[in-house]
């Protein structure tokens, strides 16, 4: 049984009289410890998939299971604790709390978890040992995103979700960030789901899922993924 499984998941938004099928019969599965890249053009339903997988949105129909639990049938309260204990999220725009230092931002997340990693250690791991006491405004975009990844990892979640984590970053920084996520998967054994429109990222993934029109167009396993550092786009 796969770690994550979508079976016939649909998500329909109602906009006035028009029904928009953002996800329309999605079936996919991801194994534990994989770095999975979900790739597709804008409007293909990537973010919706991420939202539903991250417990931020509910399905209209179908089921999502994670580690044997049916996430799609969770109540609001269950979803909250699901997000809290099982999911780490890396945003495109980092979403750090501006009024907390780097370390505090990590601690903010770790303090609500059951079994968090040491925030300072995690920050060192992402290469920010020297910037821990800086406020987000004092950090560069890449640094901020690394703080965000540290924040997600420190929660020690089962699943790490990243939504265009390099979207606001330059090439080099982006690669560093991707490297971190790949390390999380390879070294820490986290299941990492990365959403991007950038086809280039597929080469570093263990599994690549192409989405088009709200469906999984193809699911490929990548037998020999590239190191992120070697990636070029």
């Amino acid at each position, binding site marked *: 049984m796969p770690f994550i499984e979508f079976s016939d998941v649909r998500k329909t938004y109602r906009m006035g009289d028009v029904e928009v099928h953002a996800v329309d019969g999605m079936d996919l599965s991801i194994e534990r410890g994989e770095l999975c890249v979900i790739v597709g053009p804008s409007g293909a339903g990537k973010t919706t998939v991420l939202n539903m997988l991250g417990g931020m949105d509910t399905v209209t129909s179908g089921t999502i299971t994670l580690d044997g639990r049916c996430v799609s049938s969770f109540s609001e309260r269950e979803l*909250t604790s699901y997000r*809290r204990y099982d999911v780490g999220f890396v945003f495109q725009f980092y979403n750090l709390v501006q*009024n907390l230092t780097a370390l505090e931002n990590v601690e903010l997340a770790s*303090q609500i978890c059951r079994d968090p990693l040491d925030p300072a250690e995690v920050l060192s791991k992402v290469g920010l040992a020297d910037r821990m006491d800086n406020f987000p405004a*004092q950090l560069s975009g890449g640094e901020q995103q690394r703080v965000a990844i540290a924040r997600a990892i420190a929660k020690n979640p089962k699943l790490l979700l990243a939504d265009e984590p390099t979207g606001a970053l330059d090439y080099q920084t982006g690669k560093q960030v991707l490297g971190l996520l790949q390390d999380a998967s390879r070294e820490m054994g986290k299941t990492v789901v990365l959403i991007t429109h950038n086809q280039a990222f597929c080469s570093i993934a263990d599994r690549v899922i192409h989405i088009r029109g709200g469906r999984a167009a193809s699911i490929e396993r990548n037998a020999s993924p590239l190191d992120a550092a070697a990636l070029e786009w």
Partner: protein
Amino acid sequence: MGMLGRELARSIRSSLGRFLALAGIVALGCGFYAGLSMCGPDMRRSADALYVGTSLADIRLVSTMGFSEEQLSQVCSVEGVEAASGGWSCDVMARMDGERYATRILSFDVDAASASEASDDGITVTSDDESYLNRLVLVDGRWPTSPDECLLSADSASEGMSIGDTVTVLYGTSDLDGVLVTRTFTVVGFAHSPRFPDKAALGYTSLGSGELDRVMFVPEGSFADGLPYTELFVKVRGADELFYGSEEYEQKVGEVEDRLGAISDDLSASRLAEVRADAQDEVDEGWASYEDAKAEADQQLADAKAELDAALARLESSEAELESGRERLSAGYASLAEARGDAERRLAAARSALDDAQAKLDANASQLDASQAQADAGRQQLAQVQASLDELAQVPSALVQLDQAEASLDSLEAQRAQLEELAATQAGDELAQTQARIAQTDAAIAQLPSREDIASQRSRLEGALGQAGLTDASQVDAYVAAAREGLASRQAELDAADASIASGRDALTQGQSELDASRQAYESQAASARAQLDDAKATLDEKAAELSSGEDELASGWAGYEDGLATYQSSKADAESRLSDAAAQLEAAQADVDALEAPDVYALDRSQNTGISSYADDAGRIDSIASVFPLIFFLVAALVALTTMTRMVEDDRVDIGTHKALGFSTAAIASRYVAYALIASGVGAVAGIAILSQVLPYIVHSAYGIMYNVPQEPMPLAVDMGIACGSALAGVGITLCATWLAAAQTMREAPATLMLPKAPKPGKRILLERVGPVWRRMSFSWKVTMRNLFRYKRRLAMTVVGIAGCTALLLTGLGVRDSIWDIIEIQYEGANPIFSFNVVVGLDDGATSSQLSEVDEVLEDVGGAEGTCAVELDPMQASTTGRADATSIQVMVANDPSELTEFVDMRDRMSGEAVSFGDDSVVLTEKVASKLGVGVGDTFAVYDQDSIGNATGEGYQLTCTGITENYVYHYCYVGPEAWRKATGGAPADNAVLAMTDASDASRAKLDEALEGVGGVATVSFNSETVDSYRTSLKAVDMVMGILVVSAAALAFIVLYNLTNINIIERVREIASLKVLGFTPHEVVAYVFREIVVLVVLGSAAGLVLGTWLEAFVVVSAETNPVMFGRAIHPASYLIAFGATLAFSLLVIAAMVPKLRRIDMVESLKSVD
């Protein structure tokens, strides 16, 4: 601009909450300012409408001698006087509903009043009679029709009275006999008078506690005929058209006042002339009646004198008669004595003749007796001779016998001698025989005469013989015979003498009987002569008795006369002294008349009316409060506008950049926000002003309606366009300024920068982080909260100011309530009140100590008082700068300072420490001390006051030794020694303080019992004062309503705005937190903790601000004789704080759903 217009409409629609918040705060600010500012003018306008509508006199004239028609017409002819009328008034103590009240009785024109018609709202009274001033508004009942009917003022002052009740006038400030025609009035109705707009403060009087309790209106006929007007009322021409209190009005009335002032000397002189003429008439009349009385008295005295003189004459003639009678009598007695002498002489002569004859007879008789005696002596001699002859004849035989006896004796003795011889020889029987024989012999011897006897017998016998010249016995016979013959002749001679004596005796007896007969005749003659004389004497004695009774009569006549004379003299003296007294009085009266000084005439305008001025003062107080309160709202409005518009502008960064890039001018772009702000603030200002300029004056007026009889004008109230426009301009202006400030900052940036997302405001370390231990202990949410607080300073300011305003408003309301409550609690009713007495019994001047102790008894027995305190309580005037600007003060002088301190707790307000009060102490109450500027050790003067309340005399210097907490009225407590030093006199007790049973029933009972005690002038209970403060509490409660609502509105708008901005600004952050798995509860806490902290900060600031604001309001609202409590109760702080917190929680509760609705998807959106 079409585009801009559409955008504007859209942005308003899309941010309706923000728009409304902005409009709301501007509405509150402008409305509050306009509304509060219009309260004062509205009150003044209502008053003006009432004064005009009821034709309230503009000027009232009073004079120390009253006025007559003469002065009235003089006043009427003054230029600018439209109408004038006279009226009567007097202050009395009257009994109503069992209690006594200081009552002012005022006359009114019943005919004009009956013909007048009052409007339903009680503002206007229409009358054809132009000179009917101070028109009454009949509220209930009917107009009086007879002099013993009255109206009472229709407000709380008349509580307990209803139509048909009786008012009994007890006594007045002066003798009421010449003032009122009746002493009992029947209440037939209730009326408002514009002269008494204040329901409680009716004015001052010299009766009772010094304040008027009630007002009563009676027909003019209830006042005595010919009584001079006590006051004149003047209506100034054209003054009605001018607003009362305006400068124009003051000027107009002032002019007439000046003109009246100019003729006041004339008025005074003409009044003086009248009064003098009247008084002179009276004096002259007095003289006339004096002369009459004198004449009558003289006449009576003269009559009495004549009577007395006649009596004297009569007495004198009687005396003369008596004198002649006495002379005659004594002549009678003299002739009687003469006659008696004659008679006695004659009788004596006759008697002596008789006595001579008797003497002769007696001489003859004694001759006869001598002869008789000679004869008898001769007879005796004869008998003796005879006897001696017979004896002599015996002698011879006697001698023989003696011889014999001698012989026998010899023999016997011889015999015995023998026997003795024998015996001497013998013995035994023989001797015994012999001796017996001797004894026989002795016995025989003893039977014989003794030898001596025989010898004496013999010598005698021989003597007899010797006498007869015989020598021998034998011669005897012869001799006897011869002698016997001589004797017989001698006998014959004697018998012849006897015969002649017997014949002499016969002749004598005859003479004696002849003499006795003549003596008898003499005796009868003498008796008859004497009887005649005695008769004559009796007649004379009778006369004498008559004479002496005449004398008695005369004496009593004299006595009567003397009495009469004494009576006459005393009544003459009496009459003279009475007359001279009367003359002295008349002269004094004349002197008084001569000394009459021109009366003082005062022209008093309306501002000198207690009620009218206190109403005007209250309106002024509202003005001053209106100048402070709205500041808070304006400040908050400015801050709200600033934050709101800043947020709005920042939200639109990219838009602005786009517009700029598209070539729109800065002004055009900014105009969108300015227009937005203009519309929001404009709508708010108009709505706020429109609503609050009606509501606030309405509520304030209603609150004051509890204390004043000034009816409100009908709704809608006039809006003062000046104030309204000013307020609106201020509100809109502030908002626009804030908007411009917010927009200008952003507009200056280059379009390119604007297109980029604005870097979030960087996080900053705050001071608190330096305090390691505290900071480390804080959770992240707290750290974020603390950092956020200092990150957005405008919001901090806005929220703190707004919440502070909210708390301050609440605290002010509660504090003012506390202040008034404190008056009741601290002064009278609390656990440790300043006054431990609830009744003051005032006594007449010169009440005796027995009356005092009787009052004590009644207070203790009927009132249940435990102990009383007698003091001298004088309403006086105090000043440090002379009597011109003196202030009223109650001077309480205690004979026993320690007794007074049991009833008055003297203590320092701040420290609570006791202020010592001893013999030398002078303790002032706090407010008057600060008013006079007197501290401990400073000197001030107290003055006596006249009936109008002006200071008179030179005053008494006192040195303040202490200042004590006090809230109602001004007191000066003086120790006896200090009083003596200041005035030179001892305190004269004229009031008694006591704590009695306070229930209504026992009060009435006590009042009744005290009325029976002589010398009791007033009985005043504190509860009356307490009640009036409870009334003002009600007014404050109404104002509290406004304060609570506006405070809540303030809190709501500020907090809504703040949370709104906070949430909008931090949507991403909140969404992120949600994504991170924060529970809804944690998210709410994370966001609102900041608001709660701000609220607590703001509230704390509000408590400080409120304390200051409350002090301002309290000082503004205080009236002269009252000091409000200065301390706000801890509970009020708690309530203000708690209520603010509660408002905030309400807002938070309202905002929570909004927080819930934030979609986590927001976190994924780009920053734009």
